[in-house]
Each structure stands twice: as structure tokens, then as C-alpha cells.
């Protein structure tokens, strides 16, 4: 048993400010959302002034709400496509392709990070300019090549925002995997090179076991981020006809466009629970690995 640097009391004292902040800015608003979600409060009309407590009525309504199921389906596809397959997959591939190639890596990293650090509103406009049906760069290129102009936002709305989000967020996964690869002792791979092992075997037996825990960290973070992302709203507004309406956009529409605060809060609570379940699932995976 290693002796800790400080006594327990000191540690608790030092943690108090952080815990206080978490309580004020996270726990309290969370409880407030729970409370509002059990009322029929609205932003206009009589229920804005005197909302009633309705218990779990909102939740019953959500479970028979076709817009909710649509939003849930869109969100899950979006997370699967753009986070788990897209960002993690592409990030890992880029990290592997540039592994032990210092110059190439710094070049690729700077390009990828650029997509990550430009402000969201700017990025959204760039993509609209790129994909617009009549004036978009992509359609200009297609028509130069003699191909049909495609109305991307209307014909392929979900693939469009998935692609957008992969482009936007791959940087984080790539950086994380690049750093993870650095932790593998070079002698392992050198030995493997000497023996003449295939690339796949190298990945399966040496690289992957060494970066497993990083992979999990990456997946937890990007899943939760992607699940709650709102940026696609700037591209499609949740349309056409709700085909890109993520849960976050649906909550926004319910609460701030149709002013149903209570109902919106109950959907937000459900989204919170789904987030929680996802996080638990990942954590259980990491525990099983350690056991």
C-alpha cells in the first residue's frame, strides 16, 4: 500500500470547489429538467403561468409519439454511422497509415485538425456552399463531368450529415489513436518485422491488444458527443420532413419552436437516460476486460 501524498481530509477539501461547481451547473439543472418534465409547462398560453404537475403523463405521450421514434432512429443511425464506424474507423486508419511516418503524420494531422477547429457556424456554411443543389461546388464539378446534379440535402439527407460529422470529428480519434500507438514499445514491432509477420497479424496480435483501452475511451467520448450534437441543424434544420431530426433537434423544436417546455424536458430526460445506458454499457465492457 503506497502512502498517499496528502491526507484524506486535504483531498476532500481540495475537491470541494470542483464538486460545488458540478453541483451548481450540472446536478441542479438536471434536477430542474426532471421537475419540469413532470409538468405541462409551456412558454406561451395559460400553462406558461400556471403549469400543472402531471407526473409521468409526458413520458407516456413520448412513447406513443411518432416524432420521438423518428428522432431516436435518426440519432442511432447517426451515432453508428458517423461516430462508431466513421470517426473511430477513419481515425484509427489514419493513425495506422501514418504510424512511424513522422512527416506524413504531422501533415495529415494538421489537415484533419483544421476541420475540427473551425467554428461550427462557419463549417456549416462551407458545407452548404459545397453541397447546394444549384450553386454548390460539388454539383458544379459533377456537371462539368457531365453527370446529373444531385440535391444532396433532399435525396440523401442522413448520409449527408453523417459524412459531414465524420469530416468534422475525425481529428479527435486520430489524435487519440496516434498517441496510443506511440505507447507500443518499438521493439515489439521490430521483432515482428524481423520474423516477417503479415500486417494483419501485426495489428491483431501486437497493436490492437496494446491500444484496446484507448479504443474504449475513444468510443465512449465520441458516442456521447455525437449523440448530443446539434450542428446538423445548421445544415438541414432537421429536414427535409424530419429526416435528419436528431433527438437534440427534436428537443429544441419541441421546447423553443412549439414552446412545449414540459414535454421537451421529458424527452431530454429520456435522452439523458439513453446516454447513461450507453456509458454504462461501455464501462461494463472495460471492466470485463480487466477481470
Amino acid at each position, binding site marked *: 500500500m503506497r502512502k498517499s501524498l496528502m491526507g484524506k481530509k486535504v483531498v476532500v477539501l481540495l475537491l470541494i470547489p470542483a464538486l460545488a461547481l458540478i453541483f451548481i451547473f450540472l446536478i441542479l439543472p438536471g434536477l430542474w429538467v426532471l421537475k419540469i418534465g413532470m409538468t405541462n409547462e409551456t412558454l406561451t398560453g395559460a400553462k*406558461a403561468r400556471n403549469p400543472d404537475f402531471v407526473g409521468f403523463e409526458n413520458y407516456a405521450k413520448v412513447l406513443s409519439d411518432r416524432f420521438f421514434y423518428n428522432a431516436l432512429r435518426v440519432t442511432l443511425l447517426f451515432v453508428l454511422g458517423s461516430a462508431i464506424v466513421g470517426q473511430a474507423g477513419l481515425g484509427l486508419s489514419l493513425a495506422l497509415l501514418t504510424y512511424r511516418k513522422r512527416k506524413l503524420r504531422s501533415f495529415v494531422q494538421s489537415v484533419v485538425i483544421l476541420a475540427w477547429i473551425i467554428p461550427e457556424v462557419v463549417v456549416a456554411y462551407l458545407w452548404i456552399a459545397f453541397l447546394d443543389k444549384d450553386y454548390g461546388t460539388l454539383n458544379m464539378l459533377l456537371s462539368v463531368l457531365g453527370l446529373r446534379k444531385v440535391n444532396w440535402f433532399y435525396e440523401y439527407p442522413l448520409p449527408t450529415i453523417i459524412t459531414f460529422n465524420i469530416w468534422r470529428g475525425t481529428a479527435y480519434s486520430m489524435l487519440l489513436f496516434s498517441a496510443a500507438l506511440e505507447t507500443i514499445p518499438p521493439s515489439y514491432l521490430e521483432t515482428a518485422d524481423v520474423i516477417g509477420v503479415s500486417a494483419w497479424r501485426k495489428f491483431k496480435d501486437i497493436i490492437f491488444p496494446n491500444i484496446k483501452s484507448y479504443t474504449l475511451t475513444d468510443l465512449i467520448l465520441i458516442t456521447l458527443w455525437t449523440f448530443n450534437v446539434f450542428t446538423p441543424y445548421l445544415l438541414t434544420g432537421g429536414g427535409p*420532413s424530419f429526416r435528419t431530426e436528431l433527438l437534440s433537434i427534436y428537443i429544441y423544436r419541441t421546447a423553443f419552436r412549439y414552446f412545449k417546455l414540459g414535454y421537451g424536458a421529458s424527452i431530454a430526460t429520456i435522452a439523458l437516460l439513453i446516454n447513461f445506458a450507453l456509458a454504462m454499457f461501455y464501462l461494463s465492457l472495460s471492466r470485463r476486460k480487466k477481470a
Partner: protein
Amino acid sequence: MKRLLVLVLVLAMAAFIFGEKVTIIANAIKGGKNTQVVDWFEKYIPEIEKELGIDIELIQTGIKDEDFKARIVLDIKGGGGADILWIDGFWVPEFVEAGYLRPIDDILAEIPAWKYYYDSMKAMGSYKGKTYLIPASTDVRMIYYNKELFKKAGIPIPWQPRSWEDIIKTARIIKEKLPGVIPIQLNAGTEMGEATTMQGFFMVLLGAGGNLYDWETGKWIIKSSALRDTLNFYKRIYVDEKLGDAALQVSAGAREKTFELFRQEKIAMYVEGTWFYTSVLNPNNPSWGFPDRDERIGWAAMPGRGKPGDPEFVSISGGTGFAVNINCKNPKLVAEVLKRLLYIEPQLSYFEMKPFVSPRSDLADSCWTVNKDKFIAETSRALVKYTTFRPAFPVYPEISFQAQLLTERVVTGQMSVDKAIEEFAKEVTRIVGKENVIEKP
């Protein structure tokens, strides 16, 4: 540095002691949406500031109506917001129920012009026996058409359809003769919000002798043959004959995109309100205005369905006006500002900059004769007798959303007409209760 600090402090204190301030918010921005409104305020605010010795601030926005509404609501709910709110009349009931607006009957007592307002206009601004809004202007709705495109397609001008069939026939000719031009823009879908309900859905439904609300029984109409015909008309235009662009209706920023396309002469007919002509297409609007608007753009009354017993022509009216925020600290001052904005001279100037149907009898005559605004004079004379108003109850916005959804599901082909009506009936019943809905033959 020290001196500067002292100066700032003195100025701050001076402002605190003497600086009385009135704020006004309007959905307008210089060079963009309702640019004429900003120009008008800039013309008159300095005078009023000088006369009253106060500071008047205009908050410009110029955004989607739905976003503007959300902003005002959140401002007031948070205990703030501008003193004078230039809002849409149909928001009044839900705002009053929420306790966001101050009754202004005491302020109106200070305003000599109030006696000239038409009763129907006074009714638009009142709710449950109190007045909350001074109407600024009202409007009518019609079909605009691009004369140049009509000439190219060989359609005789002036054009005045007598039935839905006439509209379809004209649209077919345009489709055939002018590829790449969208024959007709009839608003549909939720993206356009209230513009779909007013300029699209209602204009068709009224023409079939239908309505959303039955004034006799005081119930919402969930099924009727008029409703079915309305949606079938939408279906013919957008699905069966592709005389309109369904994808456009449901894409982000649809309304602005259609303005843009009309400006580029890629839309031949557009069902819209007065505002479209006097503000969007106004030669002084840098975004979408036509320099030669009066020669280039014609208008026709929207016909009824065309069956015996149907209305000959239809129109529906809304309007915006001045309301006072419940959080307003200084109603006396607000009364003084409003009083001056409503003097005859600034009002005449307003209707000159942004011609509209006047809500006041003393302006109406001078507007038509003094300003010679041919368009307003003609459209008012032709359409005011046909026009009607929205059933502006606190629950109306929710029903309106369901109506938008109806059109969206039909024009995008997501649902058949019958299925969409089924959904509509179910949702409206859920919103207002079984005892408040009715089915009509």
C-alpha cells in the same frame, strides 16, 4: 487614464439620473427583411427623442418569424425584453394567457388616433375584453405572377383564374413552354411555418368553402369534403403533375429560397400576401426587390374551387401591431412614444415607404388618394370584401402546425390524402379534446 475614468463615471451617472429609455423591437433589419421599417424608425425616432428628452432604442432582428417569436417570449419570460413589441396579431391570445402583455386601454386613452381604427382591427388586438395591440397594418392574399414569363409562355395578360382548374391549366402551359421554371409556389410544409397555413392551406381550403374552425358551433373541423379537396389540389400540383417543387417546400430556409427563386424569375405564380409585394419585391429591397416591379409583376385574386356555391374569390388577413411588454417600467413614456408614432404624418410616411392596407379610416382615404398607391388601392377594393381572419385562440398555433404537417405529408408523398387526414383528426382531437371537434360533410 484617470481623467477618462472620471469622465466615464460622470457620464454613467448622468445617464442613470437623466437617461430615460424606451426600447422597441421589430422583426426588421436594414438592408434585409422589412428594411423599410428600419428606415421609417430612423426617420422619426430622433424627432421624438428630442421632443421628449429621452433615449429610444430600436432593436433590429430580421429573422424567421418563428425565431423572432421565440426570442420575444424568452426575453419576457426572463423578466426583460423591449418595452414596445412589434408583433403578429395572432400571437396576442397565447401571450396574454401567459401574462406577457400589458393591457393598453389606459395608454389608448392618451392616443387621439385610436378612434379612427376599424372595429375589425380593434378586435384583432383585443382579447377577453381588454386591448393589447394597436394594429400597424393589415393585408390581403392573392396570386402574384411574373408577366414576362407569362408572355414567354403565350398566356394572355391580364390573367385572372376563375377556378382551381384554371390555375392548373395555366401551370401546365408554363411547365410545357418554360422548362426550368417552377409553374406555381403554393406554400406547403412545416418549414415555412405560419406562411404555409395562411398563404397556402387557408387560401385553398376557403376556396372549397371550408375552414379550420366552425364559428357556429365553436369547434375545430377535423374532417370535411372541403379539407379532402384541398389536399387533393395540393397533391395534383406537387405529386401528380409536378407543377410545383415539393423538395423545395421542405428544405431548410424554404421561404427565403422561394423569394430568391421568384426574384430570379424561376417561379411563375406565387400565392402570397400584401407584404410580398410591398416589402419583399419592393424596388428598395436589395435582397429580392425588382426595380421594375410594377410593370413586371401582376396579381390576380385567388379563385374558389369552382363548384356551384363555392366562393368566387378568397382572401385571408392577418396583421402586425404594437404591443406593450408586461415588464415595461414606464408606461407613461411608452404612451407618449406610441402617440407620436401614430400621428398622421409619420403614418402616412410609413404607408408610403411600405404600402399596406390601412387599419384606420382617417388614413385609408389619404393613403389611396394622397399616395396614389395603385396596388394597395386595387387589392383592397377587390379583396377586402372577401377576406376573413384566423381563429386566433391560444391553441391556434398547435392546430396550425397540424395543418402544415397535413400539407407536408401529402406533397412529399409520405402519406395518402386519407391517411394524412386521419392523422390530422387524431392529433387535433388529442390537442383540444373530443368535445371540441366536429366532422363536416
